């Protein structure tokens, strides 16, 4: 208790720094409202001391600086400060605020000691051990700060975290240490004609009663067969699950199918391929099958070995009249079917056996091959090998020394691995086998601070620390061999070498994880599942659309990154990245196939840029209705880097109403009447108004959808009339920016927004720096962010140039 008091007293008696010379400016322009009497917005500048070491006090002064700098204060109706006075004020306040933070940064670094997040942990273990077992779900969820789960301050330790590290390491080592006999792999082509459920359905005469007392229980045949294929008019899991194929064990598999759409009037079908273990059904891949002409489609995927493979197809089994196959039977059915020629499964694919992971975990230890008759088992599997180290303790020392150096991402200090070796050796002395002893040592290494924490020292990063930072930035994993080599040679901090290595990583296969992890958080795509669109209002929404939405935005960012396209494309682009399903959603004709490709947009298209991408439009809506406030706030925060303040606690949100008698704009208008609301909503709402032309799944709309009032819908869905919803009130997507410029809809809005492309560039630079360095952008970092943006602009404003400018910046090169 005494300690507590001592702490409190110390905290409260820290003396205030002298006030920067801003008092005359404040007295002339601010204290009329912000004094002890009026205290407008809860701010009394006459009593506000200057204590930069106090976070809250610091943030208050930054807010004063920002609101005056942006011209929001003094408010429009008051006299403007003269340009010179304003500059003087800014300079006087900026210097002490910046200096305080820069001094802190020089002492401790911008970034706090940072631990691996769970995505990085999983990828790192995959690389260290050569395994592909998912591990992420074992660890507690990380807390993102400043929008990203790479930010060190949010990545904390707790007893629970340590407990889960031990558990995850155990699971990883189980997957890595494989001594079983080489599984007899499969490599076989299967015909659906031989699938039990289908066979039985085909072979049972139509009309056979399944329940003798019920004349309506007559058998329906739902398949047709000919010499080369089975035509499926249903893809019910219990019938078409590929039970013929028993997977021999965990590993990577190659799956190949051949099929086409049947009786589809020239329209293609999308085939989805899942794995199912009766607990979880997981989508493995999907492909478009053309009408009438078979297509072969191949992919590889990881399977546990406990599942079976199921194919599904949404748009079969109903004909144009709306009749279901169950009521018609295959012989007479005129609707679309899926023709499947065959499916091939090969796996587990492994070049080496025992897998390379064994050596990566335990070191290069001699193995004794066990004969078939030596029946030794572990976990129900027959062992094929035994570890046979000549000298157990030497093998432990070698194994753990090598592993620790790779796990710590640097050469070891003298005897640094000794404690781990001692731990394992004690275990041997207590009677453990070589393998069990190694596992103890390995688990300790994988729970140690040197593995879990990215070691960085205040000031400029060492080459090795830089290699680690760069690798986690662009590949979400540990540095690869080449990067380690360049860093060890002390060359990485040379700008040209750093640039070449950045290029190499961006061109490599793991750059995809950068796109997914960065874009998924920057644009909040990770929330894509947070809401499910109302099935009545949005009957066209399906899983392929949802998957396509995220893929589109990732593909778009990737296209900008690989082609080094100007950042202004985020606001508006003359192209989109779509596949068949997205093109259908965006009403772009003539796009076949499930793969994403670049498509030029028609001149009058509302699409182009990220704002009009379905993913963004979905994560900013709640499944039933859209709100200009939420979308506007999203644009300010993510695209412009100016998050609006949260709504005041005493104001209730708007009650969504889908009955069709009022629009969100009419409701908002009431909200905006009062001056205190309007001061923020003038800024927040306009982008949201422009986006009102897009519904909760990103479809373009001229009318709101209503479930009560309104006219019948004229359009059709899959050739059928839409009865699920009505055409509600018309959408008004016009608005006025805070500076008075008006727009009629999204296209005009985007044109106005292009004036702010420098700001978009700065915001993106800030997000990249936050993600890549593991620390949010401080007040003192703003000049550095400006410099990065200017550099990128000088290099043509391309996204790839921006990433290079980030990597070469002082912020990235220093702790």
């Amino acid at each position, binding site marked *: 208790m005494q300690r507590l008091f001592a702490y409190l007293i110390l905290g409260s008696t820290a003396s205030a720094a002298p006030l920067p010379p801003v008092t005359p400016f404040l007295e002339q322009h601010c204290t009329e409202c912000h004094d002890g009497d009026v205290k407008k917005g809860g701010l009394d500048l006459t009593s506000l001391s200057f204590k930069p070491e106090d976070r809250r006090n610091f943030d208050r002064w930054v807010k004063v600086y920002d609101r005056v700098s942006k011209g929001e204060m003094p408010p429009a109706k008051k006299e403007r400060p003269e340009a010179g006075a304003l500059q003087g004020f800014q300079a006087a306040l900026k210097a002490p605020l910046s200096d305080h933070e820069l001094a802190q940064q020089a002492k401790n670094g911008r970034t706090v000691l940072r631990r691996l997040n769970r995505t990085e942990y999983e990828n790192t273990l995959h690389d260290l051990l050569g395994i592909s077992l998912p591990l992420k779900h074992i660890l*507690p969820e990380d807390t993102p700060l400043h929008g990203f789960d790479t930010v060190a301050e949010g990545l904390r330790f707790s*007893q629970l975290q340590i407990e889960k590290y031990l558990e995850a390491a155990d699971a990883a080592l189980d997957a890595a240490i494989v001594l079983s006999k080489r599984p007899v792999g499969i490599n076989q082509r299967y015909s659906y004609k031989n699938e039990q459920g289908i066979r039985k359905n085909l072979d049972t005469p139509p009309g056979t009663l399944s329940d003798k007392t019920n004349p309506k229980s007559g058998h329906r045949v739902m398949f047709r067969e000919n010499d080369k294929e089975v035509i499926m008019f249903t893809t019910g899991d219990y019938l078409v699950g590929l039970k013929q194929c028993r997977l021999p064990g965990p590993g990577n598999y190659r799956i190949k199918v051949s099929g086409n759409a049947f009786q589809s009037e020239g329209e293609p079908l999308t085939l989805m391929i899942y794995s199912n273990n009766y607990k979880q059904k997981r989508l493995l891949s999907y492909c478009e099958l053309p009408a009438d002409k078979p297509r072969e489609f191949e992919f590889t995927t990881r399977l546990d070995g406990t599942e079976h493979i199921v194919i599904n197809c949404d748009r079969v089994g109903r004909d144009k009249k709306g009749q279901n196959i169950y009521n018609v039977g295959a012989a007479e059915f005129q609707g679309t079917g899926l023709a499947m020629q065959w499916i091939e499964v090969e796996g587990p694919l492994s070049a080496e056996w025992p897998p390379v992971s064994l050596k990566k975990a335990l070191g290069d230890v001699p193995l004794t091959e066990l004969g078939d008759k030596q029946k030794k088992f572990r976990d129900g599997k027959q062992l094929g090998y035994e570890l046979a180290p000549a000298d157990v303790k030497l093998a432990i020392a070698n194994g753990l020394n090598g592993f620790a150096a790779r796990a710590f991402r640097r050469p070891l200090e003298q005897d640094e691995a000794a404690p781990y070796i001692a731990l394992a050796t004690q275990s041997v002395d207590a009677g453990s086998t070589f393998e069990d002893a190694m596992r103890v040592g390995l688990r300790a290494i994988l729970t140690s601070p040197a593995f879990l924490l990215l070691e960085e020292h205040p000031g400029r990063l060492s080459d090795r620390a830089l290699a680690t930072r760069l690798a986690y930035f662009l590949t979400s994993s540990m540095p690869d061999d080449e990067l380690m080599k360049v860093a060890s040679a002390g060359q990485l901090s040379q700008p040209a070498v750093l640039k070449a290595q950045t290029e190499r990583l961006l061109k490599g296969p793991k750059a995809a994880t950068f796109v997914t992890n960065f874009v998924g958080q920057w644009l909040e795509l990770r929330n894509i599942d947070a809401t499910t669109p109302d099935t009545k209002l949005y009957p066209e929404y399906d899983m392929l659309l949802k998957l396509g939405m995220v893929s589109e935005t990732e593909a778009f960012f990737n296209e900008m990154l690989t082609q080094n396209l100007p950042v202004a494309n985020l606001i508006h682009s003359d192209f989109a990245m779509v596949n068949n399903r997205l093109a259908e959603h965006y009403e772009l004709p003539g796009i076949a196939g499930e793969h994403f490709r670049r498509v030029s947009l028609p001149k009058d298209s509302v699409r182009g840029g990220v704002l009009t991408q379905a993913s963004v439009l979905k994560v900013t809506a709640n499944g039933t209705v859209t709100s200009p406030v939420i979308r506007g706030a999203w644009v300010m925060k993510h695209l412009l880097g100016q998050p609006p303040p949260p709504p005041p606690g005493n104001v209730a949100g708007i009650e969504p109403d889908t009955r069709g008698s009022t629009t969100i704009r009419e409701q908002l208008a009431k909200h905006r009447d009062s001056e205190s609301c309007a001061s923020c909503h003038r800024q927040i709402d306009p982008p949201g108004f422009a986006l009102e032309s897009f519904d909760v799944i990103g479809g373009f709309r001229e009318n709101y959808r209503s479930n009560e009032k309104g006219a019948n819908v004229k359009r059709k869905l899959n050739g059928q009339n839409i009865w699920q919803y009505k055409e509600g009130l018309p959408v008004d997507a016009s608005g006025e920016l805070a500076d008075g410029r008006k727009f009629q809809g999204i296209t005009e809005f985007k044109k106005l927004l292009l004036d702010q492309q420098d700001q978009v560039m700065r915001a993106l630079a800030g997000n990249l720096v936050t993600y890549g360095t593991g620390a949010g952008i401080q007040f003192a970092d703003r000049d550095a962010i400006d410099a990065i943006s200017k550099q990128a602009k000088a290099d043509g404003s391309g996204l790839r140039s921006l990433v290079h400018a980030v990597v070469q910046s002082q912020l990235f090169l220093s702790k």
Partner: protein
Amino acid sequence: MITRPAISRRTFLHGSGVSLALPFLEAMMPRLSSAAAATPPKRMVFACASLGIYGPSLFPKETGRGYTLTPYLEALKDHRDDFTVLSGVCHPDQAGADGHTSEMTWLTSARGPGMGGFRNTVSIDQFVAEKIGYETRYPSLVLSSAGQSSQSYTRSGVMVQAQSKPSQVFSKLFLDGTPGEISNQMRKLKEGRSIMDTVQAEAKRFERRVGAADKEKLDEYYTSVREMEERMLKSEAWVQKPKPKVDAKPPTDVENEADLIARMKLLFDLIPLALQTDSTRAITVLVQGRGDVPLINGVTMAHHNLSHHGQDPMKIEQLQRIERAEFEALNGLFTSLKAKKESNGSLLDNTMVLFGSNLGNANSHDWHNLPLVFAGGGFKHGQHLAFDAKNNQPMCNLFVQMLQRMGIEADEFGSSSGTSLPGLVV
């Protein structure tokens, strides 16, 4: 508010090293005979329907005793004198990153969930687990109707993963392992402790390497490792002690996640068993209903969607069906807690149950005026305790009152402004 969490963490750490060791020995003594004579301990249960509860069907119009039962309270009518309906209560400053972020803070009250520099604080159940968790086999039980998400957060703001499989919880509570499994577990725990020793020593070396700048982070690491070691030491003792036997069959899990009510009931069935055997004293249950259509008669739309009913009467009607079923499940919990007798009354008299939501009005994501039903614990119930709808009572005032009822010395928690809810008395 800014400095307090850091201080209380430190003070706790100073205390923990000592306090964990002593009562631990006591806890190892055969307690059964003496426990029967002594006063039964107090327990707490929190259950949250994270998609909200439709207020007009819950809150009575009248305040005080003698209110008219509303459709939802009708389901609890047999226990009318055992619970209090609370209105005008919430955590302050819950405007967060999105409409549902107040889910993270229902048991913590940390302000501005998910905003810029947000860090969650300890949840009340984990706070209790830290204080008295050593007395039971499990310091707390964290349950969810689906998935791993929970509302329980450690002192460092990390979410505790929930268990959603009743069969696993049951076996963890009541089924002894084979001798082989037990010795294996013992070996793992001993091994674990020696690993903890090693990495702790290695952290010293690491600290030398990184210098003073990051001392705080490394302190956090040390503390976590030390706590893990202590936890394993305690587990070793528990592993060798036979688990309590109960007169109930192991549950069969309901695999379909959309079968919300069946899954909720299975979890609720475990609560009286866990509490009466004193396996734990703090339980949280997150009743998750996110994307799918719950298997309830007459419900055809996804739960989350229905919560954003947009005043559509059809949706409100379906939403009421779901929530009414939730209240029926709650009634089942009250009934079984009441049916179990302890030396000074029923198990319900010794168990505080708080059921409600982190959303006051889910349709607009409003986090004020939370729907809350508070039962048991020996309080004088039977009333609708209504506070100012415009100027809500901090929910943490209730939390402090609950902590004190647990016998924990605390005069503040989270955003509390007092130590009790006016009008709620024992």
